[in-house]
Structure formats: C-alpha cells, structure tokens
C-alpha cells in the first residue's frame, strides 16, 4: 500500500518537475505585446468600422490619404489629388511602385474595385458613409495610376472620410470569393492589403500575430516594431498584472482607478494621453409617451429636459467615471472636433434653476411625497415625474452613471428607476420605435472620422430612427435641414456656420444630457518603454508603424 502511494507521489512530482523544467519562451524582442479585452471578429475593410477591427485594418491596409491628426489627412497611397470647383469630382494620383503583400502593384483598378466592392455589398462600415453620395459608376480609371471619383452630390466631409477607405487587392479577394460574396467571409479573418504589417497567425478568441511587410513602400529605416501580438485577455486584473510584470506592452479598457494605480510607473509617452472625440451621453426619449401609448410623456417637454440638464451632477460623474480626467462637455460634440462652438452654453449644475424650470412647466409636489407631479392625461389624477434609466447590465460604470442620475434628479423631485438590460436588448428596443424605447440610457459615441457630420447626423437627424445612437428620437425639421445642408456643402465657412447653429439648437432644446468627455486613458495604457506615435482623436486607433520601443531606438 505504502509503496504504491510512494510510486504515485513520485510520478506526480516528476510530472511537476517536467512542467517546470522547461523555461519560459524566449524574450519577445521588438514585438509589441497587446493584452486586450477585445476580440477581433471582423477585419474586412469593406464592412467593419468598429474600434478594434478598424485598428487592425489601419495597419494591414493603406488608404489613399491617411489621418494623422493634422488639419487635413496627408497623402498616402495617393501622392496628390485635385478637386473640381463644385467639390464633386476628385482626381487621385497614385504613388508608383507600391505593392500589395503578394507583390502585385497597387493601381487605379484596385481603387475602383475597392469602392465598388463595398458599395455592392452595402453591409455596413464605409458603405453607409459613401453609399448616399456614390454609385457603381462613380469611380473611373483614368490610367494605371490615376483614378477619378465623381460624387452624385457634393459631400462636405469627403476628405475627412476618405482615410476610412482601405484599398484591397482585387486578385486576392476574388480568388477567395464564395457564392458571389465578394470574399466577405474570407476577408473577415484574412487580409489582402498593402499596409506595413501582415498577418502571421490568426487564432480567433485567443491570439493574433502580425509581422512586418518587408517591402513596405515607406521602408523600415529608423526605429520600428518587428511585429505585434494581440492577446485576447478578458479579465481586467489579468491585464493589469500583465503590464505590471512587464509581459504586456499595452493594455486596454481599464478604469480610471487602474490608471491612477499605474500612473508614473508604466505609462510611456505622455503625449499619448489627451482628449479624444468620444462623448458620453444620457439619451432622453424626446418622443416619450406614457404607458397608454398616446399621452405625451414629460420628456417631450423642453423645460423638463432643461431642468434635468441643470440638475445633473456632472462633477460626480467626472470623478466616478474618470477620477477627474475628464470634464463636462460643451454641447453635443467633443471640444476636439472641427467647428466646435466654444461659446456654447454649458448647463452648469444649478438646482434652483432646475426647480424653477419644473415649476414653470407646471410640475409641483402636490401630495408632499418628494416627487413632483402633474396631470398629463387630463383624468384629474396627477402623474408623478418618474422615468426609467437603463444601463448595460454587467457594466458597473454604466450602473454608477444611473445611480448618479437618480441621486441628482431626486434633489429636484424627479424619480429615476435604474434598470439593467443586456446591450443587444437595448439596441432591439430602440429599433422598435419611441413608444417601445427606453426613457433614458447612457451611451458612448465615437465618431468614425474627425468631422461633426460623423457625430451629429447619426444622432440627431430624424432619418436615423431605429439606430441606438439616435436614442433621443430628436425630431426637429430645421436641424434635419441644416444637417443635410452641412453634409452636402463643400464650403468650409458655410459648414462651420451650419454646425455651430445646430450645436446651439441642440443645447437650447436640451435634446439630452451631454454628460462627459473623458481623456484617452481608459482606452489604452502603454508600458513606459513604448515610444512614438501620438494619439490621434480622429481615428481613435493606433498606427503601429509609428510605434517603437524607446530602449531599442538608441
């Protein structure tokens, strides 16, 4: 008996020794190890615009012009361009000698194929941005290196949006076409680009490896990464431990507390830390109806929405969500956006003002229960001012926002029910229309490109009913008209006037609570040894070509 257990024990000990005996893999020289919360489900440049997918696309592919945070995007695959006086005809001259990863040349035909592919598929991403102003005849090949794009109508933000179009290799895409899908299934997890990096290995849900494309047209002179490893790491504490132990060079989706804890000993280049275009909103259903389905709800009243805007405790949110690394927004677009109106009214917290606005709107606490009320449906019975706030269940921060919302509004006699629901269900209920939609919810928006059209049109133009970012159901024909004019105009001065007017109208209407602007810390935290690339608010994503290890640069 004893002998058997001894044998068993020694076998177990041997197994442990074998396991421990082999050392860890070699040190990762010049490879950026990213420990990310996020998986990369789709990297088809024709259909994806989501954060991580688009970061990957940005590094595997090249656009005609690239957004690098300057006033205008800079020449990239196109070395120059001309535009007709009516801003409808754009002629791009391609850089000669640029090759796709299979060695074939990047030419005008590839540009034509890229546009026509996503316009034909019409499945999200860039198709929804360019679809309204282009058709299948818009792109003409003039010669091998010249391509002409004729828009069906002027498109003001064209130059800002063109960096989102990444040129694909037609031969490679068509070689992987299945049932006429234009390579959609294949390209979701493979690439056909000309960018600085290529895929080395693709293991969905766990590990994505990228390595240099040696023949990249910009060359590899100077300090650059050899490759990038993207490890999907769901657990925040694992990511935190990984960057602390030096195993990770970048982590993401951390809280302000985590950032504070790491401050000083990990974060690399301080210029990476700064404002971004993301904005945090508490959407208010402007077409709210009561349970009977007919009676206009209190949120339809501009005075009530203004009262809420004055009552909300912005400072508490800045502290809770961002440990102070953020601020109350000035209106519906971030301060970093072009055409932001720096003179807009900010609803600074003012409870007296909020109470008087409610009184002006006919709300009073008639039964002394602490909640203001008013007879809305004319049945002689006053309805209490009570609204529902839904947060994405599982996201503590969003719940916290709900509690701050609840506590702030309680001070002026408005009762808020804070309810959790899965995100997909919230999206579904928004799609069902204003009568089915939630009264209020918290949402972050990240405009796809650095132009107010990308922020304002989807959120406040009434044609977007059904979309979750159109959560206010804001319906103002004058704003609709201005937004249409803004996108169709190529006159920058006129566009500036239009967008500033829209901002003023939205703020005056208190279409929603413009809740928070946060600095770019929670998105990405880099190890101290990471240098280079400045954070660009426009694309909200990193171009790995510009990143390098400081210690290897010398």
């Amino acid at each position, binding site marked *: *008996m004893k002998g058997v*257990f001894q044998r*068993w024990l020694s076998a177990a000990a041997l197994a442990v020794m*074998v*396991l421990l*005996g*082999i050392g*860890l*893999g*070699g040190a990762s020289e010049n490879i950026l190890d990213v*420990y990310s919360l996020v998986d990369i*489900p*789709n990297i*088809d440049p024709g*259909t994806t615009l*989501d954060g991580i997918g688009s970061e990957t696309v940005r590094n595997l592919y090249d656009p005609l012009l690239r957004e690098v945070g300057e006033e205008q995007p800079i020449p990239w695959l196109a070395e120059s361009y001309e535009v007709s006086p009516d801003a409808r005809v754009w002629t791009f001259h391609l850089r000669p000698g640029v090759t796709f990863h299979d060695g074939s040349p990047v030419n005008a035909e590839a540009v034509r194929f890229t546009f026509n592919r996503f316009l034909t598929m*019409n*499945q*999200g991403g860039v198709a*929804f941005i360019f*679809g309204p102003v282009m058709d299948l005849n818009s792109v003409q090949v003039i010669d091998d290196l010249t391509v002409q794009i004729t828009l069906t109508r002027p498109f003001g933000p064209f130059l800002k949006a063109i960096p989102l179009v990444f040129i694909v290799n037609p031969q490679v895409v068509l070689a992987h076409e299945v049932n006429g899908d234009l390579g*959609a*299934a294949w390209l*979701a*997890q493979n690439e056909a680009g000309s960018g600085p990096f290529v895929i080395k*290995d693709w*293991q*969905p*849900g*766990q*590990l994505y490896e990228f390595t240099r494309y040696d023949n990249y047209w910009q060359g590899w002179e100077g300090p650059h990464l050899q490759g990038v*490893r993207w*490890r*999907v*790491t*769901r*657990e925040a*504490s*694992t990511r935190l*431990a*990984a960057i*602390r*132990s030096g*195993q990770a060079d970048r982590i993401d989706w951390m809280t302000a507390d985590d950032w504070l804890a790491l401050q000083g000993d990990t974060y690399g280049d301080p210029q990476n830390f700064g404002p971004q275009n993301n904005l945090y909103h508490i959407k208010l259903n402007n077409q709210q109806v009561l349970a009977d389905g007919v009676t206009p709800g209190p949120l339809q009243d501009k005075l009530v929405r203004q009262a809420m805007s004055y009552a909300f405790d912005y400072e508490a949110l800045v502290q809770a969500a961002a440990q102070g690394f953020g601020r109350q927004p000035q209106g519906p677009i971030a301060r970093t956006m072009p055409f932001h109106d720096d003179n807009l009214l900010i609803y600074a917290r003012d409870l007296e003002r909020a109470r008087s606005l409610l009184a002006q709107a006919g709300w009073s606490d008639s039964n002394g229960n602490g909640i203001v009320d008013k007879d809305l449906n004319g049945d002689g019975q006053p309805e209490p001012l009570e609204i529902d706030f839904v947060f994405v269940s599982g996201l503590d921060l969003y719940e916290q926002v709900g509690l701050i919302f609840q506590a702030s509004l309680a001070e002026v006699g408005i009762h808020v029910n804070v309810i959790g629901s*899965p*995100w*997909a*269900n919230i*999206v*579904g*209920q928004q*799609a*069902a229309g204003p009568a089915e939609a939630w009264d209020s919810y918290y949402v972050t928006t990240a405009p796809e490109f650095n132009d107010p059209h990308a922020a304002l049109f*989807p959120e406040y133009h009434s*044609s*977007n009913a*059904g*979309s*979750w*970012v159109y959560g206010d159901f804001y319906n103002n024909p004058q704003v609709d008209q201005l937004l249409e004019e803004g996108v169709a105009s190529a006159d920058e001065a006129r566009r500036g006037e239009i967008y500033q007017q829209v901002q003023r109208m939205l703020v005056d209407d208190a279409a929603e609570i413009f809740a928070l602007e946060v600095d770019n810390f929670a998105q990405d935290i880099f190890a101290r040894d990471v240098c280079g690339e400045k954070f660009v608010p426009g694309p909200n994503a990193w171009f790995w070509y510009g990143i390098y290890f400081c210690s290897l640069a010398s």
Partner: protein
Amino acid sequence: MLRRYLLRQLVAMLPTLVGITLLTFIISHVAPADPVRFAAGPHATQEQVEQLKRYFGVDQPLHLQYLNYLRGLLGGDWGRSIRSKQPVLADLARYFPASLELVGAAIFLAVLLGVPLGVVSALRRNSLVDNLARVVAVAGVALPAFWLGLLLQLTLAFQWQLFPAVGRYSPELGRPAAITGIYTLDALLNGNWTAFSDTLRHLALPAFTLAVNPLATITRMTRASMLEVLSRDYIKTARASGLAPWTVITKYALKNAMIPTTTMIGLNVGWLLAGSFLVEAVFSWPGIGLYTVESSFYSDFQPIMGSTLVIGLTFLLVNLAVEALYGLLDPRIRYG
C-alpha cells in the same frame, strides 16, 4: 445486450436533441434583441438593415427560420455568426477542442488526485489525512474557481513566472500543427516534444483551477462509498481469506465503490463544459463556454444554438459512456 441497449439509448437521444434546439431557438428569439441592427452599425438605414436581415435569413417567419435551421443542421450548415460572419460549425471546430482539452485535463487531475485521496480518507478515517482531505473538499466546493484562478495566476505566473499566465501556447515556439485541435494531443501526434511541454505548461493552471471543484466532490464521494463497501461482509470474507490488503482494496472494494463516483465524473464533464467560462476568461482560454457567453451578449443566436447543441450532445454521450462503464465495474448490472 449492451450494444442493443446503447443503440436504443442513442435513438432516444434524438428527441432530446430536437428539444434542445427548439428550446434554445425560442429562448434566443423571445428577447427583444436585434442582433442584425447591432451588426449593421449606427449608420445603417432601415432599408440597409432589412437587406442584412435577408442576407442572414432572419426576415422570415419564426417557424420557417426554425425549419430552415433544422434542415441546415442535417446538411452540415449550422448557420453563421452575425457578428463575425463565420460559419458556426467552423467556430465550434475551433473552440470545442480547446474546451475538451481543458475539461479533459481537469477531470483527469480530479480523478488522479481525488480517488486516491478518497480511498486514503476512507481507510484512515478521522486521521490527519482524512481531516486534511475534508478541508480540501470544503474549500474546493466553496472557493469560486475564477478567484482561485486569479490567485494562482498572480503568484505562479506573474510573480514567480513558473507558468505562462494566459493562452494555449507560446507564440515564440509556435503552435503544434493542427490535427485534432487539442494542442497537447496534436503535439504528441506530431512527436513535437517542445510544443508538448509548452502546451502542457499552458494547460496546467487553468486545468488545476477547474479541477478543484470536481476534485472535492470526487474525494468525498469516493470516501463515502468506500466506507460503505468496506463494511460489507464480502470484504470481511476476503480479508479473512488472507488476500493481500492491496488486492482487497483495489479489486474488491474500490471497483464497487466507483459506481457513484463514475456517475459524478460523467455529470461533471457536462457541467464543466458549459460552466468553465469564468476560468476560460481568466486564463484567456478560447473555449466553448466563453464563446457561448459572448455570443449571448450580442444575441448572436446561431452560435448560441450551435454551442448549446454541442454541449448537450457531449453531455448525453458522456453519460451514456458512464452507463456502459457500470457494466464493466459491476458485472451484475444487466442492460435491458
């Protein structure tokens, strides 16, 4: 006899499987979610959303969608993920072997440690070993696996760097050429010893974390049934006849005591397959549990239905295997 019994049981599984598909279909469709709207992005017009719905076949009436789904299942088309556009079957072929590897290793560890611990506890009742085993068992049931996983990861992986913290293999060494998708097995089949030890080291912490709970139940179950069997007359007779104590314990006592433990092991395989997502999350193990949970965040119903079906099927098959094992353990058991 056994063969006929197994065949009959296999046929009887069919209604259960159809039931699973129907139930998951109904559950994933009653929620007011709109996965297509979500996948289309915030800029999509209603018209474009409708077009995408046609592409994914979700514009049809529910009963037709269900019938199409069943037809697809039989034809090897398990639908597509709305989020990643990949065929569900291809996704499952990727995630399921990872889960099988993790759960298999966890069960192996639990049996390897749990059964001897249970036997010793029963033989040395109320001894130090027995009391220690009791503490381990209570702790194993009470400790949340993900918490234990985080603790092991912080100390053994990040602090002392004895084990890799996350993933299934070291990218520096590369992963073994795919044969089964179970990396340790693939490395063995390829005769690639470096990859074998590397994948084994990656497996160690998550498998141990996942093993702790079944280890506890297996230890207690083995102990209880051993105690019961050891008090039987035939054991006394065997001992009185002068058989070696080792033979009495392994051949006569343990074999009979293993029946409830075997049942427990079978049930654990099913539970662990579906319930390991927290451990998978901690160790970035791309298993089917995490895949299902994430799909449910997006109401991406084809992957949800596909993985539920695979987990259900595995559960049924493992339990059928357990039933077949009863006969081996106790020849008196007849299948009829």
